[in-house]
């Protein structure tokens, strides 16, 4: 895209470039980082609530944590790690001008994200089939600490899963933009922001995983 440079002159006659809202790469990055701050605040406050109840019901939290499937959770961690790598590589490839490989890595990221959701589904399904879900009589019989642990578990992993789904949607949209040449090797800020978002989603999981699975 050809940029029309507009300038203003100071008293000494030096030229200063005017930043315009239409094509401001740094502005787009700043805006997205600010959005990520809000995401950090959302998950941060949920972790705060987690900390509050961990302090109150530490024994029940440890016991309940033992009921989660460490193997599936660990697999999901690895999957998300690899997907973040793929996302990063797709950005690198795009910047190097290799649009085809970029798209392939994006598809790979989407597939991994779907696998993540599938494993999550299996996990949730197991717990729900054991009668462990918010509001169930069985969970209520397990005591307040377990109610709180699984309440937090379903809320936080649910919210995280929602972010994964939104991420998949965004990646499909990005693929569409690449196809219609709105994202090119010279104009890639949307893909870059998507990669940042995916890093955040992955980073949140890196906190969620030990908090719920590893305290046993």
């Amino acid at each position, binding site marked *: 895209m050809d940029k029309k440079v*507009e*300038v*203003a*002159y*100071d*008293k000494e006659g030096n030229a*200063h*470039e*005017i*930043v*315009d*809202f239409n094509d*401001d790469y*740094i*502005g*787009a990055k*700043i*805006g997205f980082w*600010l*959005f990520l*701050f*809000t*995401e950090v*605040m*959302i998950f941060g*406050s*949920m972790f705060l*609530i987690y900390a*509050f*109840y961990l302090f*109150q*019901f530490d024994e029940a939290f440890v016991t309940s944590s033992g009921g989660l499937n460490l193997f599936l959770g660990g697999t999901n961690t690895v999957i998300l790690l690899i997907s973040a790598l793929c996302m990063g590589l797709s950005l690198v490839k795009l910047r190097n001008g290799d649009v085809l490989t970029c798209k392939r890595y994006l598809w790979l990221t989407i597939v991994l994200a779907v696998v993540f959701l599938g494993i999550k589904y299996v996990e949730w399904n197991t717990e729900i089939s054991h009668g462990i*879900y*918010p*509001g169930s009589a069985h969970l*209520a019989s397990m*005591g*307040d*600490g377990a*109610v*709180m642990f699984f*309440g*937090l578990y*379903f*809320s936080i992993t649910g*919210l995280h899963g929602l972010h994964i789904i939104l991420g998949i949607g965004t990646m499909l949209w990005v693929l569409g933009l690449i196809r219609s040449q709105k994202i090119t090797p010279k104009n890639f800020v949307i893909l870059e922001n998507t990669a940042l978002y995916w890093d955040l989603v992955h980073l949140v999981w890196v906190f969620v995983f030990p908090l719920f699975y590893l305290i046993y």
Partner: protein
Amino acid sequence: MSPSIPGSFYEHTHTVFGHHKSKIFQWIFSIDHKRVSILYLFSMLAFFLVAVGLALSMRLELFSPGQDIMSPQRYNQVFTMHGVIMIFLFIVPGIPAALGNFLLPLQIGARDVSFPKLNLLSWWLYMFGAILAVASLFVGDGFADTGWTFYAPYSIKTGTNVIWALTAAFILGLASILTGINFVTTIHRLRAPGMTFFKMPLFVWGLYSTAWIQILATPIVGVSLVMVIFERVFGVGFFDPTKGGDPVLFEHMFWIYSHPAVYLMILPAFGIASEIVPTFCRKPIFGYRSIAISSAMIAGVGYLVWGHHMFTSGISDMVKLIFSLLTFFVAIPTGVKFFDWIATMYKASIDFKAPMVWTVGTFVTFIIGGLTGLILGTIGVNVYFHDTYFVVAHFHYTMLGGVAFLMFAGFHYWLPKFTGRMYSEKHAIRAFYTVFVGFNLLWFPMFLAGAFGMPRRYFDYLPEFEIYHKLSGVGSWIFAIGIVYMLVTLYRGWRYGEPAGPNPWNATTLEWQIPSPPQLENFGEIPYVDFKPYEYKNGEPVHRMDLSVKEGQGHG
């Protein structure tokens, strides 16, 4: 929607679809910050009038003891709806989204905000949230009756339609976050060359501090509201004591946002005062830097004081002491601002036009509100005054007598810039005095009623309190008449007023250097700004620029 002025943004616009033939689509899909701001302005004022109507009906109910015009249950819903509309639909988005959206790019010499489409999206979200809130009246068992704070566990147990109200509040919060992100990015990236942070107009400083609060605090209340929704839908139990949850935790989460939100409302209002005072005193503002920094300080300290809402909730004495002390700190930067404004007015030949009269009137009401805030921040007194009419009076003196009054001052001040026309000074002043008298008659008696023990949110009261409610009732009618009078004056000014010219007030900031109303994309030529925003010499602005029109786009 308005008289068409050749060349101005009322004629030309960008929409998300490029150019669109339909006039309505040109408005509701416009990505010009000035049009988005006017969309916000009108929708916001419409909801404001609804909430005023609800308040009048409450005052009517309370005019004499006993049940008069509504049932207790209905009364609870009415005050909840009044609160939800006034807070989430009027006063939080009010100044930033309606006035700030219009003025921020003009004041920093930008052609638009950083993300014009996001700007439009946030108005759409706002309307969606608003419609959701209003629609919940007609669904299920009617509007929430929890009060605008949605305190758990009542909000979990009540049979009314809390979920819709919560979802609406969440969506409105999202709209507010998007506006905040947009403003911070715009201020960081699109300032005209040469305009350093300490050369920005003070209204921009107010918006900047506000935007940070929107970004950092709103997500927390957002997630708290979502958790209440989880509780109601799935029965999770975070805030439900029967399941081991802690309702006080909800109060913490809620006030971590909602206390900074108070400053989110007042900071841009202070910004308006800082624009108006130097302009009508024809003097550089006293202590520019201290006013700018105090905005940021208020925003910072505002995060640390939420606990003073919870002195009676059973938190520990040490925590109460700390929160009480921190609360007093907020008075310091606020006091700095007031002394700076008064120092600017000292020995100035003040031009008492309507915006200035509104501002000086606000100083009176806000000082009453602020000083009673100190009373309430003191633990011992707070325990006595908690949830009485004293709090109601304090709250309305700060929010209405502070934020809304300065917003009205801003309406008068910038009307010529928005419309190119002038309101009638005579009627504007009369409207001010009507509002001012009505306001004080309405809320001052509540300080007394509260001090004598009248609890707030009550549908009925003992006969001893009748006199205060009678006075308030009369005050509420005078107040409402004054508000309508003011809006009619502004509207008549817009439709039939004298042409105002680009700079009727001899103001110095950039928005006054271009024609009124501005053209699409604001500036013909963007200046190099290496001077302070308020420079006057012998009562005249030092810098006069001609940034009038873009090539090939006539104006007038």
